[in-house]
Every structure is written in structure tokens, then in C-alpha cells.
């Protein structure tokens, strides 16, 4: 199996889906000739032509609105927001239309589109290039919100997103784009949207996370085991909404202790829903308050300080030790 970066794995997913299905078209700012500012669409313009890979004018609502029309017609548009922080320009198109077309038309029309957007910190980028606001979309009925945690599941989840009959917001961590390589089989792999995964088994504590935070969480879990012998079970959500609470609820029932780790600001963030599901479904098993290790309730600072904002393995480790001691 070839070892691919996440950028290459995403590119593979797009390339294979485009080859297999002429309904799949790409559009966005600089996705064509330039191959995308992160090169995720590299080579696709050359392979499939301007008819399948559209360089658009600089207008996010335009991109999303046009994608909705294409999707209603029966195509499977995959549009790119250059950074997730620019998806707000299209927020009304997503909430008013992508999310509601099926419902509004009582099933006559639907919007099988994917909105891809790089999100999150860690690559010394400019303002508006480092935030993590998946909660906006997760709270929006009619949308799905997916965040892969590595090359292999990124590829398999993107394939699933493209084939999904409903609109999927697909956030890609810039920090993971070229962070490491993983074996990604050339042959098709699809991971169902709406399913989480246990990435490390353990019986003493449950850590729920996703996206770029999975790596520091895994590192912290290893270190925790070394330092204390306690075994953390780690769950990668993969899909934020619809949220799969089965694995983390079952896990917390076993371990009695849980925490959630994400980059997003804490208050009203995705972690609150995870905590609440645990309260609703595992309350009587919990031996300690569920912990949140997250971004703070401020805008992520410019890059000289972003590292201090982002949760890291050490913060997770300390929180885990406190949780075990609680």
C-alpha cells in the first residue's frame, strides 16, 4: 500500500470518485489551474478539464449557492472553501437551502453536495485561517459535519461524503495535511458517516476527540499508561453530526471517567454535547465530572501564540491524571 499524506489521500478520493462518476464536479477559488492553495485538487484540472474542475470568482455564497443548484439538478458537487473561516459568507446558503431543500420539497429535491474546508490551527497561518467552528454546522438540522483524523480515514470519509445523499460539511485539519503519511490502499475504501471509532482500548478512562486532536490525545494516552499504568480508551468521533454516541457512552459506562478534547472554543462547543449525551446515557456509571480540554473562549491568537491556545498532549495528560485521581 502506498503511504500518503492527508493531502494526497484526499486527492486520491477526489480523483477516483471523479473517474467513477461523472456527476462529481469540483468548484472553488483556485481549485483548478492552481490545484488549490493546499494542493488538495492538484492535477485534477489537468485530468478532468475545466468542465469538471471550476475555478470560481471570489464569492463563497456564490460557490455554495451554485453547488446547491448543481446538486438539485443531479450532480454531486464538491466545493471548497479556501479556509473554513470564509464559510460564514455562505452561511445562509447552507442553513437556508442546503440543509432544508429536502425538507422544503418534501423529498422531491435533495442536495448531495460536499463542502470541503481546511480548519484548525497549528500551521502558523493568518487570522481567519486557524479557527475551529464545527459547532455551527453540527447544530444545524439538515447538515452533516465530518472531520477526519488522518490520511486513511480522510480518504474513506470523503468518498462516503461524496456519495452521501445529503449535504456534508467536511473539515480538513491543515495541521494534518502534511504531518505524516499513512498507508492508504489504492482500492476503494469507504467509512460510513455517522460512526465513531475506538482508536485505543482501555478500561480506566474514556477520551473522546476528533480531527487534529487525535494525535496529541493518543500520545497522552501512551504517556499516561507509562506514567500511571492507567489505560485510556480513545474514541475518534470522525463524524460530529449526526453524533454517534454509542461507542463513547458504552466506553464511559465501563470506565466511569470521561473527557473530551477539541480545538474549538469551549463554551457552547461540540464537547458540551458529548458531555450531555454522557449525562443522559451514562450518568449512573460516572465516577467523576467529565472534563473538557479545549480551546479557550477567545479568538485563536495570531500564530506567535497559537500553540498556547491549542490543546496539546501535555495538557491532555495532566487532565487525564486529574481525572483518574478524582
Amino acid at each position, binding site marked *: 500500500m502506498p503511504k500518503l499524506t492527508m493531502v494526497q489521500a484526499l486527492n486520491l478520493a477526489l480523483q477516483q470518485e471523479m473517474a467513477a462518476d461523472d456527476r462529481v464536479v469540483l468548484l472553488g477559488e483556485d481549485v483548478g489551474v492552481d490545484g488549490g492553495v493546499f494542493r488538495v485538487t492538484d492535477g485534477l484540472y489537468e485530468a478532468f478539464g475545466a468542465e469538471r474542475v471550476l475555478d470560481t470568482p471570489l464569492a463563497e455564497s456564490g460557490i455554495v449557492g451554485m*453547488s446547491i443548484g448543481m446538486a438539485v439538478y443531479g450532480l454531486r458537487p464538491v466545493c471548497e472553501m479556501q479556509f473554513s473561516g470564509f464559510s460564514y459568507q455562505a452561511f445562509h446558503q447552507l442553513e*437556508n437551502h442546503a440543509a432544508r431543500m429536502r425538507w422544503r420539497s418534501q423529498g422531491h429535491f435533495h442536495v448531495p453536495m460536499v463542502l470541503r474546508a481546511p480548519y484548525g490551527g497549528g500551521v502558523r497561518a493568518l487570522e481567519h485561517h486557524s479557527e475551529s467552528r464545527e459547532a455551527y454546522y453540527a447544530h444545524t438540522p439538515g447538515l452533516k459535519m465530518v472531520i477526519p483524523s488522518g490520511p486513511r480515514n480522510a480518504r474513506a470519509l470523503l468518498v462516503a461524503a461524496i456519495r452521501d445523499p445529503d449535504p456534508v460539511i467536511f473539515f480538513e485539519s491543515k495541521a494534518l495535511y502534511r504531518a505524516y503519511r499513512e498507508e492508504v490502499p489504492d482500492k476503494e475504501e469507504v467509512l460510513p458517516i455517522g460512526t465513531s471509532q475506538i482508536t485505543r482500548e482501555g478500561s480506566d478512562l474514556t477520551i473522546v476527540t476528533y480531527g487534529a486532536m487525535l494525535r496529541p490525545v493518543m500520545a497522552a494516552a501512551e504517556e499516561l499508561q507509562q506514567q500511571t499504568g492507567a489505560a485510556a480508551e480513545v474514541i475518534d468521533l470522525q463524524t460530529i453530526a*449526526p453524533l454517534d454516541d454509542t461507542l463513547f457512552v458504552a466506553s464511559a459506562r465501563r470506565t466511569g471517567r470521561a473527557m473530551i478534547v477539541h480545538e474549538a472554543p469551549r463554551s457552547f462547543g461540540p464537547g458540551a454535547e458529548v458531555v450531555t449525551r454522557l449525562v443522559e446515557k451514562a450518568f449512573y456509571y460516572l465516577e467523576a465530572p467529565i472534563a473538557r480540554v479545549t480551546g479557550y473562549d477567545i479568538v485563536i491568537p495570531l500564530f506567535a501564540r497559537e500553540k498556547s491556545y491549542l490543546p496539546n498532549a501535555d495538557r491532555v495528560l495532566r487532565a487525564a491524571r486529574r481525572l483518574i485521581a478524582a
Partner: protein
Amino acid sequence: MPRTHIELDESIERLSILDAEGNVDKERDPDINRELLLKLYRAMVLGRRFDERLLALQRQGRIGTFPPISGQEAAHLGAVAVLQPEDWMVPAFRETAAEVWRGRSLESVILGNAGFNEAAALAPPGPNLPVAVPVGSQMLHAVGLGWAARYRGKDQVVLTFFGDGATSEGDFHEAMNFAGVYQAPVIFVCQNNQWAISIPRHAQTRSATIAQKALAYGMPGIQVDGNDVLAVYAAVAEAAARARAGNGPTLVECETYRMKMHTTADDPKRYRTDEEVEGWRRKDPILRFETYLKRRRLLTKAKIEAVDAEVREAIQTAVDAAETRMASLGDPIDMFDHAYAEMTPAIAAHREEFLAETAAAAEEGSDA
């Protein structure tokens, strides 16, 4: 190193064929066949009468808020009359007669105005998007549809409606610009009815016409007398031919007037004068079309009465059918449908919860 005048790509024109008195510019008469002319006439009368009936239903509390179309029949019917069945229509919300022309049943309109999601299910599954309230946001879908049609090698065109107010939204701009760049086969039809709720046209934008906004996108733009069904038809036909031939989009501004309130929740007396309304009453689109048809001997007094009676009956039938259906509709459990292709676990759980609540409520005789 001169200060030079820049020649524009397009010039903006105004078209009028049938004047308020019913006089026709023979040279420009689009030569619509007799059957279509009469179909248009009936549709305009139906639109007007249906408005009146809906207003009565609303005042009786049998339906909710809705936006009357009276006065704008020519503007939207003249436009959709140009379309082929396989062409797309992307409405705003004040084109009820056009929706009906395209196959939506009166019953579906009534149900929608009565707050039933099922109204959409009654609409025929043709190439017509459902009405969506957010002003201006639908035009981009027209561009996507048009692009997709071309991608599929179809010669479909897409017609989208919007009001004068909608031209202020950023989405209007993005849609026009995308359509220009991709030369999408889209006809942008602005029903400029002079008001956006209480905001008059001149306070909406400082440009003298809406048609000239086309120049910002390298696109042809034309202003027509929107109460002149022949002019609307002619201008839209020209635009449709252009689009079908692969020559891209057109902006058609129809100058018309909203004769009634914005919606039934609105009181236009707060912001406009009776004189203004009266002035426009003299430009009524149906009366002048009637004169034209009478002069062409396509319509007689008897025929007019017959159309009126037939239309009223169709409306009555629809009202009856709608009220019967309403009694059987509205099972709240249906609200959990159509959120996604497959119900999510949370929605399924909420549905169960709702059923349990309903059962408990029934037991105690309280509210679910």
C-alpha cells in the same frame, strides 16, 4: 494620455408593446398563437381571482399570511409562458400564478399558506424549485441548475424571479456575476413592483433602472413594461433564445406594481398613498390584455364571463379539496420526516420521545 470614454459592452433598452389603453405596436407584437394567448388570459384571471379568494380565507383565519400577486400577473405569467416544460423555474415568492402555470395545484398553494409542509408533496415533481422566503438567495441555484444543464448537454434554460428589493442582496450580485462568467443559460426576471415592503424603489438603489445593473456583469439587460404581457413575453423569449443558443444570461426588469399589501400582515397605508395605487390601477395588466384580445376578436363579453365562471369554480373546487385534505393532514409525527435521506439516531430518538409524550398527554388529557 487622454481621458477617454469607455464604450460599454451592452446598451440598455426599454420595451413596451401593449400600452395601458390596449393599443399594440404591431411591428413588435411577438405573435403568440391564439391558444397560448387565451391560456395566458385565463391564467391571469385565475391569478387575480385566486388572490381575492386567498385574501378572504386569510381574513377568515382559514389560512395564514401570504403575499398577494394582484397587478403583477403579466410580469410573471408573460415570463413563464416562454418556458418549455423541461426548462427550470426558480421562484421567489410572489409568482403564484406562474407556479400554477407550471403545474402546481391551487390546492397545494392553499395548503402551503395554511402552514402544511405537505403542500410541497402535492406539487408536481417537475423542474420547479419550491418557494423559499430568504430574499435573493434563490438566484444562485438557477445558475447552478443552468450550468448543470449545459454540462449534461441539455438545451434547458432556467428562469428565476426576484423583486426589486432582492437586487440589493449580495446574492443577487454573486448570481449575476457567476452567470456572466459561466455564460449560464439563465433568465433573471426582476418583478420590479416599486416596493419592498415599505421601501420604495428609489430608496433601494440609486441606479435609475434595475436593468442597467446588467452592465456590471457584461450581460444584456432590458427594461420592459411589466404590465404589458406581450412585452414581457417578447423580452423573455429573446433572452431564452439567447440562453438556449449558448449565449448566456440576460437580465429582464419588469416594471410593475404590487396593488395589494406586501403580505396579509402588512398595512400599505402606512407608507404609500392611495393616489399612487390608483395611478397604477389605470395600468392594469389584465384590462389592457382584454382589450387587445377583444380587438383581435379572440375574446367576447360572453367568453370573458365564461372564463371568470370557470376560474371561480376551479378555485372553489380547490378550496374544498384543500379543506378536506387539511382535516386528514397535519399528523405531527410527520415532522420528523425528510430531514435526511435516512433518519439520524437523534431524530429517531426524538420521534420516539414525541410518541411517548403524545401517549402520556392523551392519558392525562394534556398537550403533547
